[in-house]
Every structure is written in structure tokens, then in C-alpha cells.
């Protein structure tokens, strides 16, 4: 859907809002998750973001992409949410585990291991790598994590990130470079 008309819009109808949620719901949810590292908070925040977008569409001037605008709302909403000590201390718990521990080696006697042929082996390796890289990325300090993800996951340019975070392009470049360096180093250590 082409959202350019929103730059002049004063309100959003349900159809447009639904399309926005279809197109950007995951981006918003993931960004909230990257900032909070909590799936529960991301659940709440992502919904709040679209309610705020609905209420504040008149403020959208089309100066940035709709995605960047929504990500900015996500960032502001997250910070507002987390600023409250009450909410931080009593509303949500820790991030939930996404998977259980892998079974013990003894079960290998029973079930054929996935890598029965090279492609299956690659598939297993690929899945493990996905988890590993997210362990590394989510453990980064926030100032590196956020910029790295805005650049790699959301494909925002340096100047877009600088505008969104209200910092200089130089700082963005520096943090991006350092963030990538940290991930690369840990990634190589794990890959060895």
C-alpha cells in the first residue's frame, strides 16, 4: 500500500491502519523487543504504538518514511513506558525463554539426527547460527545494539538513524562500526 497520502491526512481509517499493522507490525514489535529484550513488553508496546500513530497521524508530515516514523514512535513509547519505575518494577517480568534446552545425547540412540544428508545438516547449522547471532546482538550495550539493528535489520541510512536518534552522523558511524566489530569478534570466536 502506498502511504504517501498520510502526509496530508488528519485521520486514518481502519482499513489503512490495518494495512499499516500488516506491513509494519513485525518491524514495530521487533524494535520494541530489541529495546526492551522482553517479549511481553513488546506485545504491549507494539499495540500502543499503533494507537499513538492513529491519534497522531496529523503530525506526520512525510519528512521521513512511514516506517521510520513508526520506529520513532516505538522508541518514544518504549522510553516513556520504561521511565516509570512502577511499570518497570511490577508490570512485567523477564524475557521469556524462546526454546527449551536441547535433548541429551542419549536420545540420539533413538532418533536419527537431522544431518542425514548435507542439506539437512546445513539447515540445522543455519538454525543454530540464527540463535547464536541473536544471543550476541542482544547482549550488546544498547547504544551499539540499537544502531546496528536500525542499520542492518531496518536498513536505515546513517543520516536517517542520526535524525531519528537526534545524534550526529559521525556518532552513528562510529557506533555502527564498533557494534559490528564487537559482533564480528564474538561471532568468529563462536565459529572457531
Amino acid at each position, binding site marked *: 500500500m502506498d502511504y504517501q497520502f498520510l502526509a496530508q491526512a488528519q485521520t486514518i481509517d*481502519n482499513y489503512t*491502519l*490495518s494495512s499499516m*499493522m*500488516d506491513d509494519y*507490525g*513485525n518491524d*514495530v*514489535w*521487533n524494535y520494541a*523487543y530489541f529495546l526492551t529484550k522482553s*517479549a*511481553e513488553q*513488546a*506485545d*504491549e508496546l*507494539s*499495540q*500502543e504504538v*499503533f*494507537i499513538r500513530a*492513529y491519534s497522531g497521524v496529523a503530525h506526520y508530515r512525510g519528512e521521513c518514511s512511514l516506517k521510520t516514523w513508526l520506529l520513532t514512535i516505538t522508541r518514544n513509547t518504549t522510553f516513556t513506558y520504561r521511565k516509570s519505575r*512502577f511499570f518497570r518494577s*511490577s*508490570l512485567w*517480568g523477564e524475557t*521469556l*525463554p*524462546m*526454546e*527449551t*534446552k*536441547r*535433548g*541429551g545425547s*542419549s*536420545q540420539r*540412540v*533413538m*532418533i*536419527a*539426527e*537431522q544431518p542425514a544428508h548435507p542439506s539437512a545438516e546445513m539447515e540445522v547449522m543455519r538454525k543454530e*547460527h*540464527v540463535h547464536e*547471532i*541473536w544471543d550476541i*546482538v*542482544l547482549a550488546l550495550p544498547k547504544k551499539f545494539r540499537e544502531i*546496528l*539493528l536500525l542499520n*542492518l*535489520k531496518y*536498513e536505515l541510512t546513517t543520516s536517517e538513524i542520526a535524525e531519528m536518534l537526534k545524534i550526529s552522523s559521525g556518532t552513528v558511524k562510529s557506533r555502527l562500526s564498533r557494534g*559490528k566489530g564487537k*559482533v*564480528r569478534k564474538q*561471532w*568468529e570466536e563462536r*565459529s572457531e
Partner: protein
Amino acid sequence: MKQKDEQWEKEIRKGPFALSPFTEDHKQNVLQQLELMKKSEEGSLGDGLEQSYGSSRPVRPQVGNTSHKRRLRRRSLVAGTGALVIAAGLFLWIWEDGQLVKPVIEQVYPTAALQLPEGLNTNLLTDKMKRNVATTMRDDLGKQLKITKVEDLTVSGRIYVEAGNESEKEYAQIWLDATTGNLREVGMRREMQPSELEHRYLRQVPSLLQSIGSTPTLKPASVQRFVSMKQGELEPISHTTLALENETGDGYGEIVWQQDQAVSISGDLSLDQVSNSVLADAKDAVKVVFGETSPKLKGVSRTKDDEIGRDVINLSFNDHYLVQMIVGEETKVYSVIGENLYRSDFTNWDEVEAYHQEIYDVKESILREQVGAMIKEVFNVNLQGYTLHREVDNPGIAIFELESPKDVIWVRYNEDVKITMITRGEL
């Protein structure tokens, strides 16, 4: 180096999770809340600040001698707060199954969500008790049930609170300390639609199924939740069981969570996930024990139970035979199981007892003759060194035991000494 960078960068672009985290439920919640906001706005059109202020007077705190400016600010604040409380009440009243607004209001004012009808002994409940009851139902059961009974149990020094109806799907019993208001015991249960299951559980489902090798596309079919806190325990523990099935109804899975942690995962596996050697051994066992010449593998399922520390694989053949393998930290059990063909045409209890006696009295030599060769072939074990034990309460079960090294073989048989199960290992 560049190639490696590209690889991990690609992984990041894919996102951290396999499936969409922002679901249709999230979307519907947003749309529903906006509808309510619109209705609320329409309802309040034409109402001035004074009217709002007036309507919120009962909850207005006392204001002392303050400046006019400060009073106005407070009045605005009170008016705003009042409107918020009214809006919250409206949401709670209209939108019973709300996912966003209701939990937030409940989190801030847990007792506001308590469904406490008039006519009950509500004066027995202190604020702390109300809060404990409300938060226990909210956090552990996931729903506020309507309270149906409040009683003072003077002998045990407790206050008893009952919610829902015992004969229905949602029911709660909570015992509180009459002096401190603390929880003493809790028993709650609830059956719910899969759509009602909290997202923090649902979002784990694909990866949990994948973790046992099952198909991650199984769909939630039903949910049951039990919450228990026995005397002496510190907090309620919830167990949530989600049954899953595929669209054709012939695939099955089940996940059990204790609190938010998955403790048991079951699911069907594809047939090609069984190694050739395991399959060949299982087929041989079915042939030897049941005489089935060409057993065909029909289904494979797995249960990984972290609570009891066991991993169970089931291979079913020809819809009649099952080969089950259980691996625990210190146990390993291998079973070859067929249909249990006991007689069932009894007309009275005497006939049953006579039948049990007949089975129990089967001579040891006949049993050994019948199963010795099978056991030798399936497990490569000579039964001669094993001692036979039989239990009166289990007349159709023969237990062959070896003291050193410790080994146990269980045999189930019927009156014709037809073998219906052989199991090796500690059950």
C-alpha cells in the same frame, strides 16, 4: 571475512524469530481499543470540564487552602484522572476479553477488576485480601472469575473465597490467613479457547515443537490450566496444557508449561526421522513378539518431559503394535506392546476373580518357554539367570529380575499365555 560478515548480517535481517511476532490478535486489540476510544469520545462530546469534574467528585481527594492557580491544576488533574477511571470502567464493562486496556488497568488497580457481587460477606475481606485474590486470579489463572462465596473459617483461622462454579470449566478456591491476609492455599482451574491463551505461551509453540523435531505448523486446539498452592507452599504454581492438532485432525501435539516454562513437549514426528537401525530393530521386535511378518510403520511421536526427566519415542506399526523407547537420566526402557487381549465377557465379580487366578497360576516353566526365545532374540538376553516375581494385584504381569547387573524384564500375558507386552528396564 567479508563472507562471514555477510552471513551474520543476513541472519540479523531475517529477524530473531521464525514466525511473525505481531499477530492478528494484536491487530484486533488495537482496532477494538480504537473503537472504544471513539465511542468514549462521542459520549463525552458537549461535556465541559466542570461536568467531568463534578462527576468525579466522589473520588476527589481533599484540597486544602491552596492558590487558585494550583487548585485549577489539581482540578484538571482530578478531572483527568476521573475520566481515566470512568473510561477504564467502561472498557472493563464493555470489553470483557480485552487484551490491552484491561490488563493495564488491572495491573495498576488489581482490586478494581475483582468481580465481587453484593450480598456476599465482603466485609470479611480486607483490602490486602482483595488484592491477593485479584492478583492471584489475574497472574496465575489469567482471568478474574466472579466471586460466589466468602466465608470465615474460624476454626482454622482462614477466610475462604470461592469463584466460579465447581461444575463448570472455570473455578477457583482461595484460602487466606484471617489475620495477615496472606494466601494459605489455592486451587484454580480453567479451560479456555486457544485464542485466549496468552501470547507469551503461543509464541513459544513453533520453536518448542521444532525442539523435539515435530512439525511447527500444528495448530492450538484446546487449553487447560490448573493452579495449585498447597499449605506450606510459598506461591501458586500454574500448569497450562495446550493440545495441538493439524488441519486434517490426524496430527497431534501437546505442550505443558509450569508457570511460563515448558516442561513437557509432545508431538508427532515425520516417519523419516527414525533412523534405519532403530526402525529395523523395532520391526524385528514386533515380528518376534507378535509374529507380524511385515510390520509397517504408521506413526512416530515423541514426548520430552523435563519435569520427570524423560524422553519418550513411540513407533506405531499397523495400528496395532507399539514400540516405545524411554530415555531418562539414569533409565532406559524399551517396550514392545500389542493389544491387551484380556477376556471381557464377565457377568459378575466372581468370574473376574477366577479369571485373574487362572492367569496368576500359569506355570513358570510355561512362561519361560513362551518368552525365553523372544527375549533372547529381542534383547540378546538369556532368561535363565533371571528370577521370576509375580504380584497378586497384577495377575497378568510376570517380572523377571537379575540382581547383578541389575536388570528387569516385564512380560504381560493373557490366559492363553499369549504375550501382549515385553518391557526391559525400570519403569
